């Protein structure tokens, strides 16, 4: 009888170890998955921003200029993004912060979109981590001369929240 109890005891201890190991592994795997998804979301959002018709440089019927933002559109796009954030743009960018940092000729920062995960009920911030992605862009400004557009450069920063 004592032997049976001892065997059963060891058996259940082993089962318990198995369950504990499994849950620990699941927790780590879940965190890894979340980080992977965050990275993928950061890349997807950056890709969307680089090709946004709201800010990209165009020239009539010709192909749009790659990695180029039109300053005359960029200066106003944030008003539209802000106005229709709930109706439309949240579905495009989700919880993220997108801004363009001009490096030359000036150092102006243009915030295009900013939607942070809301604070929790206990007052703590709603996000644990943010993943920034940087991409160099040219900034075309035709408002300085209609004949030869001025090209500056800067970088676009896309921060996605987790």
């Amino acid at each position, binding site marked *: 009888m004592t032997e049976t109890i001892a065997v059963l005891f060891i058996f259940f201890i082993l089962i318990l170890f198995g369950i504990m190991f499994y849950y620990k592994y699941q927790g780590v795997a879940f965190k890894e998955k979340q980080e992977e*998804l965050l990275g*993928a979301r950061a*890349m*997807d959002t950056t*890709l*969307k921003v*680089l*090709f946004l*018709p*709201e*800010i*990209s440089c*165009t*020239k*009539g*019927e010709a*192909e*749009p200029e790659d990695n180029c933002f*039109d300053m*005359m*559109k960029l*200066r*106003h*796009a944030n*008003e*539209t993004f802000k*106005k*229709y954030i709930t109706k*439309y*743009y949240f*579905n*495009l960018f989700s919880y993220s912060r997108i801004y363009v940092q001009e490096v030359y000729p000036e150092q102006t920062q243009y915030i295009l979109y900013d939607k942070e995960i809301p604070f929790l009920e206990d007052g703590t911030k709603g996000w644990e981590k943010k993943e920034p992605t940087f991409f160099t862009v040219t900034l075309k400004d*035709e*408002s300085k001369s*209609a*004949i030869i557009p001025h090209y500056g450069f800067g970088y676009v920063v896309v921060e996605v929240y987790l």
Partner: protein
Amino acid sequence: MAVKKKAQIAVTFNWVYILIAGAVILLFFIGIVVKQKSISEENLATDVVRVMESIFTGAGVSEKTKNFVDISGLADYTLFFGCSEGVTEYGISGKGKPVQNNIDPIFAPLELKDTVLVLWSLPYKLPFKVIDFTFVSSRKSKIYLMGNTPFINEFINATSGFDNIEKINDVSEIDPARNYQFKIVDFSGGQFISQGIPSALSDVDDNKVTAVVFTGQDQVDYYQKEGQMWKKKNKLPVRIISLGGERDSARFATIFAGDDKTYVCSMGKAFLRLRYLLEVYQSKLTEMKEFYETDPQLMAGDCYNYISDQGYEVNVESSLRSLKNRLDACLVNFPISYDYCTEMVGAAEKLREANANLAERGDCLTLY
């Protein structure tokens, strides 16, 4: 003697106990395996649609690029695509949660089952670029083109590599082979409709045989096999709202769309984006006007006259306003008001003309 009998019962009882315990343990592990199998299938479905979402994002922005995605791991599953009330839903039939997308216009068959997914995107312009249309097809989704129009050659050249597009002169040339579904696209008025289902396709499931008939320059009808006859799916002809020309994405989309409803639904997404985009262009126009208004000499020039509604008859300001008004009428009760969207074409043409006039001058600011 009595002691011996008791021992025999005890030994038997131990075996029964061990058997029951063994069975319970076995069942426990079988339960875990079954549960894990179903969880893995759900995870696979979720992973697949997530990957598809990323692929669509990539395909959607990489204009005019064809992507061939190996989905041989999903050969046993059926992918579905649908669009209603401005939301596209796609995923694996009966598995996992489908993805919902209310931004990207995706034109795809209602169902797909294949080992290779074909993705392609083209920009939709009215007159400036509004959004990229994503077209989804597969090698086993056969498209037969009939008729005599330059568009057929343009379509065949543009979709080279798809390996699922064939030009035929008559429906009798159709050979189903090992394809999953069939679409007949006719540019000659749809005379084959009255002849019923082609004999080669008579045994194929109804939902796998469809037809698109171009009944005019800018309108199509959608048909679906019903027994041995064709059933028209749309009540009114589906209008193509575009400026025409080469690589007309709205025209290409009619061929890739599953039916009239998904086509109109996806077009609605493009029109919604146009509404927001127009506001950005309106702001750009204000800045353009300010640029010329600061200098009286510039204000008196041709450039300003092509921009301001006080200037020439065809100008950017009034064309943009007209496009916005017509877009509002189009979206007021969408998709019922879809036919009003055709009125945007005239305004968009005028805007294109005004912008081209500005570009032609060489020293003027252009809207796009």
